[in-house]
């Protein structure tokens, strides 16, 4: 903890960062004491990642100052940040998985002996560092052979090898099992006791409560509030993050589910052989799919959309079995998918809004000899821009230059123009600012009301809790449980998501 008359280890004062079209951070402040675990929370797009990139020296702020040990510093490169003892551990790990553990820890800073890499020294020092993070593997192990949780510990070891005093961890548990998560917590607590400070970014409020000495909340690129250890509570955190009463933010009206629109029986996906998935979604129903990263959720949606072929099992749309061997088949059957990887799979970034919205319907609306139906495309585009309030200077604007929220609206627009019966959404609000997010929630609501069956995958707990009529939880490729609206809670989901099926009956 910070001594009363001591300068904090790290102090961020009045930092502003603008990007073309958006101000990511507006005069934000943050302090971090020695040996303190500070949780930084906020919705997607609240500016957490931007601040972390600034602290790690990846980007420079437009305004404001950063001080380490009371002295103002300029973090103009990752190297400078590291010299000041700041290390960032990315959500997607930054390891060269074809190299061994030791080589990764010392990557770019290899000790030399007569001009050659001194492998003996690497091995020796690595053993020591690995011990500090409680990882019992040989430094000669190739990284790709380690489970993801251990790879993360290797990253932490690397951070320690540069004598990091500030460790920034961005969503460290998003792909960890329960056991690995507990292990990570022990390591973090151990580091704290040795005086290392940690900035811990997470969406899992349960974790934050367990680990954090203090919580700083960002909202829309600004400070929304701070919570001391004793006042950290789930409700307080959510309130600060969302900035309004949660029941208003997720404008849920109960709706009457109709006939079964999507019925999945014994579906086996190529990614998770041996696990059979069975569930159904009714018309006018919003079903959430929760689970850890890597639980097989995206893979399941890909099979439902015909991107990957099912190994076994049946899919029925409105009671009729369908064969989905390509997205085209799925679209014909009335299924649409807004994929997780929006920029790679959802839209063609270099094409105009209009061309993107028209893309799935080209064949359906084609004129004789395959000529384009420009009239239809124009009408659809105009309707979607108006209905979804897509902020774009014109229908000819290249999608690349739109904000994340508007890009996602283009994705939704292209599918709504196809009038789907079943809408699959994969992380529909990732990387989107809070305003656009709420608009997307309202749209989901509106579509459900019109009879569309919605199946949405989300890693954001609040979104699952707020939006779903029913929630499926996946764990390691199978559906570990199903929660009705009145059974929904973060704890119940986490139990199922980490594979503790037995305890669910108790909670």
């Amino acid at each position, binding site marked *: 903890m910070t001594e009363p008359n001591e300068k904090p280890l790290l102090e961020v004062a009045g930092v502003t960062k603008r990007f073309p079209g958006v101000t990511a951070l507006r005069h934000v402040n943050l302090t971090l004491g020695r040996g303190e675990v500070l949780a930084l929370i906020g919705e997607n797009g609240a500016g957490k990642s931007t601040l972390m990139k600034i602290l790690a020296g990846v980007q420079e702020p437009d305004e404001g100052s950063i001080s380490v040990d009371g002295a103002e510093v300029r973090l103009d490169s990752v190297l400078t940040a590291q010299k000041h003892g700041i290390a960032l551990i990315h959500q997607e790990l930054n390891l060269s998985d074809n190299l061994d553990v030791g080589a990764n820890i010392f990557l770019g800073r290899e000790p030399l002996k007569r001009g050659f890499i001194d492998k003996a020294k690497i091995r020796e020092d690595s053993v020591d560092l690995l011990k500090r993070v409680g990882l019992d593997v040989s430094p000669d192990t190739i990284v790709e052979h380690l489970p993801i949780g251990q790879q993360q510990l290797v990253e932490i070891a690397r951070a320690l090898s540069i004598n990091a005093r500030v460790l920034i961890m961005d969503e460290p548990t998003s792909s960890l099992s329960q056991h690995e998560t507990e292990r990570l917590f022990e390591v973090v607590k151990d580091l704290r006791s040795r005086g290392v400070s940690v900035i811990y970014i997470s969406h899992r409020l349960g974790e934050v409560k367990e680990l954090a000495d203090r919580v700083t909340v960002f909202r829309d690129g600004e400070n929304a509030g701070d919570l001391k250890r004793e006042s950290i509570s789930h409700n307080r955190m959510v309130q600060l993050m969302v900035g309004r009463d949660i029941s208003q933010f997720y404008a849920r009206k109960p709706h009457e589910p109709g006939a079964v629109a999507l019925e999945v029986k014994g579906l086996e996906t190529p990614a998770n052989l041996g696990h059979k998935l069975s569930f159904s979604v009714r018309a006018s129903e919003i079903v959430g799919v929760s689970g850890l990263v890597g639980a097989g959720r995206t893979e399941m949606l890909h099979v439902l959309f015909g*991107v990957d072929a099912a190994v076994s099992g049946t899919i029925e749309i409105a009671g009729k079995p369908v064969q989905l061997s390509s*997205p085209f088949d799925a679209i014909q059957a009335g299924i649409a998918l807004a994929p997780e990887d929006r920029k790679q799979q959802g839209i063609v970034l270099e094409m105009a809004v209009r061309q993107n919205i028209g893309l799935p319907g*080209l064949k359906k609306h084609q004129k004789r000899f395959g000529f*384009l139906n420009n009239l239809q495309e124009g009408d659809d585009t105009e309707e979607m821009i108006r209905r979804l309030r897509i902020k774009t200077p014109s229908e000819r604007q290249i999608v690349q230059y739109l904000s994340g929220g508007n890009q996602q609206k283009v994705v939704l627009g292209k599918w709504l123009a196809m009038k789907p019966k079943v809408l699959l959404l994969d992380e529909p609000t990732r990387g989107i600012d809070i305003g656009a997010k709420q608009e997307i929630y309202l749209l989901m609501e509106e579509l459900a009301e019109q009879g569309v069956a919605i199946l949405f995958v989300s890693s954001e707990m609040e979104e699952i809790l707020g939006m779903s009529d029913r929630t499926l939880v996946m764990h390691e490729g199978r559906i570990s449980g199903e929660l009705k609206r009145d059974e929904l809670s973060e704890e119940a989901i986490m139990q199922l998501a980490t594979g503790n099926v037995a305890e669910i009956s108790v909670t």
Partner: protein
Amino acid sequence: MKKNIGILCILLFVFLATALGSSSFISAYNLFNLVERSALYGIIGIGVAFVIITGGIDLSIGSLIGLVAITFPFLVITKEMPLAVGLLAIFAISLAAGVSHGLLITKLKLQPFVVTLCGLMIYRGLARWMVADKTMGYGEPQFENLKLLVGKVSQLPGCEGLPGAKQIPVAFLIFVVLGILAAIFLNKTIYGRYLLALGRNEQAARFSGINTTAMIIVAYVICSLISGLGGLMFALDYGSIQPDSFGNFYELYAIAAAVLGGCSLRGGEGSIFGIALGAALMRLLMNSISMLGIDDQLEPTVIGMVILIGVIADEVVKRIAAKRRAVLQARQATAEANSS
């Protein structure tokens, strides 16, 4: 159109400079040849554009041209088969090449560079082996009618009296028709849109319900078929075919024409008008070099330099545009922030 202004300027500049530097440059004979050869390069440029738009490449064009140019007289003269059989063989060979390139690239996910590089070697070897490296000629009377393809428009039946028909090569006519068809296909049909979309982002195109595999195969087939046609026309025009060298580097000229004309090798971009300009510029440069008395040996160097300058200029213009856009957006954002 706007994109091609730079290359149009270079074209005009080189044209004027050569015209001033050499009196025989603007002779009817030279200009006729220049337009005809430009059209031939333009034709194969259109073919390769389809492949480049998908983000692929076809290195086998020159060898395929060599193969059809050898096979045709080999069947018709040496083997004394009917002309129709020879023409059918050209079609079959080109189709087979295109389909196999497309299948290997889409189904086996091999890289287009590797597949067509192998094609380059395979077709060349076959051409040489078939005739044991003997030069083949197109002097026989059987080919007389086909030679109309590389003659003057005035030689076509019923076209004697048309104004300017004597000055216009038939090849140019074919090129224009092919160009218009290709432009319509790319810009006005859903299939053209498919190609442009998948060239930018194949995954997103597939996720939008487009059968990207079929479209990529179609692109390679179109490329090979047009190469086959180009091969026949080149052969008729040159008249004498060396199996070991005929068509060498034509793929590179075609690719260069496409790139000069605004195709991005990353895929998704291309204009037929630009390719025509690119092909014309390349032929013009070759012609100018000999007209202006520059050492022949320097020809590839000059062409290489001009392409490089063109590409650099294009990139610089793009960056300036991107920067301007960023500044504009930042200003808009601040204005919005201030007003709210």
